[in-house]
């Protein structure tokens, strides 16, 4: 948790995260990175000071209705509803809490589907329609089809590592692929790799195998 990572979200993205203006899918990825990156967690804590100070400096000309305090006190005295504890949870240890929450979502349980001999995918239900959010699992030494991107894609490594033509990516790394980027990820030889990703539009495959796989790779935001 305290190791140094090479691939981080930009400071501008952390600003939007700290201000709460980043869309849900991107926030899911940034938050997953923060789980592993102390450096960015500290940066976000510092950025929160801007919001706090701007709020504090606001002219408090707003008038509060006299009854509002009593309303709040009445609610506070209500007994708290019991926390539902419906079914056994299958948290994956080391995963960010919010990713485990999505994996344990009783209303939309994710299902792992095999995409190729080396790759499986599980789509995550996130209640937004801008990005498709999913977990990808690449087996040890697995090679995935070469593909390019028609839209933005954010990836965070949750377990293991993978590499492509540009670099090696390890647990916690935050990777941005832009339209036009072509790459061929390969799983590390020493163990499976699980990544969280949010992609904006369908990826285009570059080989015959890819053409066969294309229907599987349609983006279905949910």
């Amino acid at each position: 948790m305290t190791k140094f990572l090479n691939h981080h979200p930009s400071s501008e993205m952390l600003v939007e995260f700290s201000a709460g203006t980043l869309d849900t899918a991107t926030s899911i990825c940034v938050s997953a990175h923060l789980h592993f990156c102390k450096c960015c967690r500290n940066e976000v804590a510092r950025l929160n000071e801007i919001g706090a100070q701007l709020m504090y400096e606001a002219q408090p000309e707003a008038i509060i209705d006299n009854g509002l305090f009593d309303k709040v006190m009445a609610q506070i005295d209500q007994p708290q509803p019991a926390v539902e504890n419906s079914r056994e949870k299958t948290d994956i240890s080391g995963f960010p809490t919010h990713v485990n929450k999505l994996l344990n979502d009783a209303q939309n349980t994710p299902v792992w589907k095999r995409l190729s001999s080396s790759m499986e995918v599980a789509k995550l239900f996130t209640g937004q329609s801008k990005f498709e959010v999913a977990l990808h699992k690449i087996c040890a030494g697995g090679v995935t089809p070469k593909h390019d991107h028609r839209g933005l894609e954010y990836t965070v490594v949750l377990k293991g590592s993978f590499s492509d033509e540009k670099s090696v990516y390890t647990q916690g790394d935050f990777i941005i692929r832009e339209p036009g980027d072509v790459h061929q990820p390969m799983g590390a030889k020493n163990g499976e790799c699980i990544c969280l990703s949010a992609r904006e539009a369908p990826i285009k495959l570059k080989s015959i195998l890819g053409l066969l796989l294309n229907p599987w790779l349609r983006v279905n935001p949910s």
Partner: protein
Amino acid sequence: MDKINQSAPKVAIFKSTEKRDDIWSVLLVEVGTSQDRSAFAQLFEHYAPLLKSFAQASRQDGWFPGLAEDLVQEVMIKVWQKAGGYNPQKSSATTWIYTVARNCRIDMLRRKCNTQHLPLENEDFWHEPDEATPVSLLRQKRTEEHVKLSLEQLPQEQDEILRKVYLEGKSHTEASQELDLPLGTVKSRVRLGLHKLQILVAPEFKKELVND
């Protein structure tokens, strides 16, 4: 001589780890530790108008003025319920309450604009603050003080964008459309602002901060 030299920095570090003693942080601790209602009433009196102004500043899609008092109510209830988790060493009451308000504002908007089941709340994206080390505390407090002093001295064009983002709740893209500026200009103004507020850490220091 040596002894004096060695003890000097320790004094400085000790100062940086002192708990925040502004009245609001003290009151919030009292609410958290002993459910003190009169402390809560004072917090309410002070923060409710600020929270309402924050709510009224929102220009997000789907937000309407009628939601302002709902937000105040929801935030203050959360403040009461969650005050036990507040640690005055890690942040001031104002910063802590700001983060609660920001999360509530997003969740209220999502619930208004969405009828389907939402598996996550904005709170789920937030991490407990790290165990404070002398270096991280010093940095955090320095930022807090620096932001307080320098925010009002920011050039108007940087201030304008930070307000749009933090108070109105606009993304950089929306800000660039509204101000009729290229996205790159908006981002570079944000970045300049962050430098002035001394929030960014030079990449060469990042590695050291991880192990402090």
